[in-house]
């Protein structure tokens, strides 16, 4: 049986110095920028990986980079762990605090500082939500491409920390491909600026290292991101297939034919049923798998591309083809998919896996996934980004039944190992957090991990930044 995930033992000296630390933080921050009453700390005890929770020592909500620097400098001097937090939407526990940690939340730094349409960049504070950038740039015909499902709530700071993806990254790439620069604070309070409106790093590509580092290298307070001209139009088409295998080989053929749609989303039968019951999107219920393929461009371009795609789908025995004639129909097609996590949450507790596999392994991994969940007596629904092999099996369980919860965690671990063994990786876009931390040795050899930790140490020798995450607790050296 799977053991509960461990956190680092709280530092006794920090716990015993709690009152002093809070009083010192009061000197650094305004009254409305510090949370320390246990009852008020509760909202910060976990994130979207709700199976684990820890009350932090205090929560700092700074308003400026200078305040972030002051808090970090203080914590560094006294050896107090720090856990950065955006909107707390992490699915891997990346923002879950620990008892001896000061959480630094970026919610009060939510200004869009500059929209530069000439250079197609936006400079924003880290607490800005993902969607608000596209909202602000939309009137001028631009958008910010990475679109995680939580984009209404999640922050750019969190996106940079996790190198977030989304449904449309098949064409536009993930956060690291759309990030031009950051202002960040290192563990000792040093403020560092990397990149800007220009392209490429002048020296080592530290920006690439920071993006996806899960708050372990510093705290990002500002980001400069790329804006892209909105396409003239976008149109999804929905395909229903008898089996997942047919859907899988259709995906491979679309890509093989040299067509790169903006998105190819896959849902299996359980996912279709759950989403349809919730969103009433009109999904066919007599199929075993469903693909949503979206293309962009002018009307003529989309017509031509969709004709090719439909022809390929027909070769794979597609049962249902639903092309849409209006924006309303298009929205309905997406509505089901986008509500997948919420709809699942209504019928059961679930954990969402995030392994990526090579496209050629999709069918095999799907089959093995259901074998694993069947064996453990669990239900699984698959919703994922098929174009890039990023799988999202949702394992359903009952959180009030500890044995069921433990089985779900066990199934999740087995599925992730399956993804790695099929030539893939543990996490495509959600991050390692605490959730996949203890599986890192399955993907990386000891020397590989040691090298990553050594580079980490160049930023934070003393393991103060989000220290319970990403790297297995044993053998940290």
């Amino acid at each position, binding site marked *: 049986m799977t053991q509960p995930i461990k956190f680092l033992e709280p530092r006794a000296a920090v716990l015993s110095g709690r009152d002093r630390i809070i009083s010192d933080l009061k000197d650094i921050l305004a009254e409305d920028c510090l949370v320390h009453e246990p009852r008020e700390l509760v909202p910060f005890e976990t994130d979207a990986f709700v199976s684990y929770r820890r009350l932090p020592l205090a929560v700092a909500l700074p308003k400026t980079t200078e305040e972030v620097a002051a808090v970090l400098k203080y914590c560094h001097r006294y050896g107090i762990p720090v856990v950065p937090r955006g909107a707390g939407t992490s699915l891997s526990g990346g923002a879950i605090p620990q008892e001896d940690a000061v959480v630094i939340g970026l919610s009060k730094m939510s200004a869009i500082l500059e929209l530069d349409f*000439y*250079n197609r*960049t936006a400079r924003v504070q880290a607490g800005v939500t993902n969607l608000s950038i596209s909202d602000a740039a939309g009137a001028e015909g631009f958008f910010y491409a990475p679109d995680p499902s939580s984009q209404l709530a999640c922050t750019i700071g969190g996106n940079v920390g996790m*190198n977030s993806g989304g449904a449309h*990254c*098949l064409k536009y*790439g*993930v956060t690291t491909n759309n990030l031009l620069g950051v202002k960040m604070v290192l563990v000792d309070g*040093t*403020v*560092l600026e990397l990149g*800007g*409106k*220009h*392209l*490429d790093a*002048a*020296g*080592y*590509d*530290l920006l*690439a*290292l920071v*993006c*996806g580092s899960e708050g372990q290298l510093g705290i990002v307070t500002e980001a400069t991101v790329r804006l892209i*001209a909105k396409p*003239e139009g976008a149109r999804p088409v929905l395909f229903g297939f008898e089996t997942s295998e047919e859907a899988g080989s259709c995906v*491979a*053929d679309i*890509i093989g034919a*040299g067509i*790169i749609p903006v998105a190819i989303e896959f849902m299996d039968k359980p996912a279709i049923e759950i989403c349809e019951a919730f969103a009433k999107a009109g999904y066919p219920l007599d199929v075993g798998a469903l693909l949503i393929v979206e293309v962009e*461009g*002018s009307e003529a*371009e989309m017509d031509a591309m969709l004709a090719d795609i439909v022809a390929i789908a027909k070769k794979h025995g597609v049962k249902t083809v639903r092309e849409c004639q209006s924006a309303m129909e298009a929205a309905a097609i997406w509505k089901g998919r986008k509500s997948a996590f919420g709809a699942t949450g209504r019928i059961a507790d679930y954990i969402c896996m995030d392994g*990526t*596999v*090579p496209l*050629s392994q999709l069918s095999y991994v799907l089959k093995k996934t259901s074998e694993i969940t069947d064996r453990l007596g669990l239900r699984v629904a698959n919703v994922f980004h098929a174009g890039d*092999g*990023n799988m999202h099996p949702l394992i359903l369980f009952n959180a009030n039944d500890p044995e069921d919860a433990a089985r779900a965690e066990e199934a999740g671990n087995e599925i992730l190992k399956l993804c790695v063994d099929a*030539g*893939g*990786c543990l*996490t*495509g*876009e959600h*991050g390692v957090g605490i959730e996949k931390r203890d599986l*890192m040795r399955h993907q*990386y050899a000891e*020397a*590989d*991990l040691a*090298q*990553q930790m050594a*580079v*980490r140490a*160049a930023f934070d020798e003393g393991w103060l930044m989000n220290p319970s995450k*990403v*790297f297995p607790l044993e053998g940290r050296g």
Partner: protein
Amino acid sequence: MLTPYAETQVADIIRDHTTRKTPLKIIGGNTRSGFGNAVEADETLSSRAMSGIIAYNPAEMVMTVKAGTPLATVEAALAENRQMMAFEPMDHRPIMGTTGEPTIGGVFAANVSGPRRYVAGAARDSLLGIRFVNGKAEVIKAGGRVMKNVTGLDLSKLLAGSHGTLGFLTEVTFRVLPKPPAEKTVVVCGLDDEAATRIMAAAMAMSVEVSGAAHLPESVRSHFIAGALPEGPATILRLEGLGASVEARAAKLLFVMDRVGPWALLEGEESAVLWRQVRNVAPYAGQDAKPLWKVSVAPSEGHRLVAALRMEAGIDAFYDWQGGLIWMQMEADPEAELLRGAIRALGGGHATLMRATDAVRATVPAFEPRPAAEAILSARIREKLDPAGIFNPGKMGRAV
């Protein structure tokens, strides 16, 4: 020159040099030797004997190759399957006056890209995973072979552009894309640098997916497509994709450009040759004595930088990346301080000395010197990968 053919041999050589603390010059095909400052090393370690495609399944759009594989081999295999490297790596031989075969390892070690970089990313954006040998002679794997992977720190991208100073690449895995079957280039004639920059930005704001935006002032015009570009400065905008789509987007773009000035339309091979020449910096090829800079700034500032420098030095320049990449050839003196000061004054960016005499390269930092905090951090990172400092010492400056 040491040319191991297996990773274990690489590790043996590096172990030996680390123990003796004797530096190594790290190269692939050595066609990009003009990068950086002089390397202080008696021995050279090359990846050129480590060659071959390890895995390539076109339907997965991913390729894994040994680092010493000639770029030509990779490009031929991709072309056979109508695919390409989206970042369009430039060939440095013409401007650096080098010979030999570029390797795929060299492409990633120098993070080489071309005109499509500003929409499709640099080499590092296509890089999915690597194997390398670090300065402790350990074989390290980073990243993987899938398109989306956030498992741990992204050491692959860190090594991209580190010019062999952090490790010796033995294997690279990268994403490839379908090669667009059609391309057209709209040439807008007669614009000065400032107007051209404005027009390029306007074109990029349209929903037509411009995949190349460069401005070729009158002084360089004759170097492209055998002098066949129309009279005057040429602002060139490339469209790529499926035939019907390119057709439709070209019509839409021309509808707007028609109001800007006279224009011409290039297609097929002529368009492809033009962009290959932009990519390879054709105007400044074969002029070994003149210092050449590659400057990256915000697109809106490129023409301002050139205008400011023209007042004080003999320079010639043309623009890529919507005006944000400036290839700048100096008449005589490299004017490093003047140039770098002007970049700072215009909001930041960086200048890399791509070509200069040995005497110049002995005194001018080839890579833009980093602010203190970043330099300290970079030096610390280097120490974690190459504790004895044996890889290409001096190449990226003395700080790292």
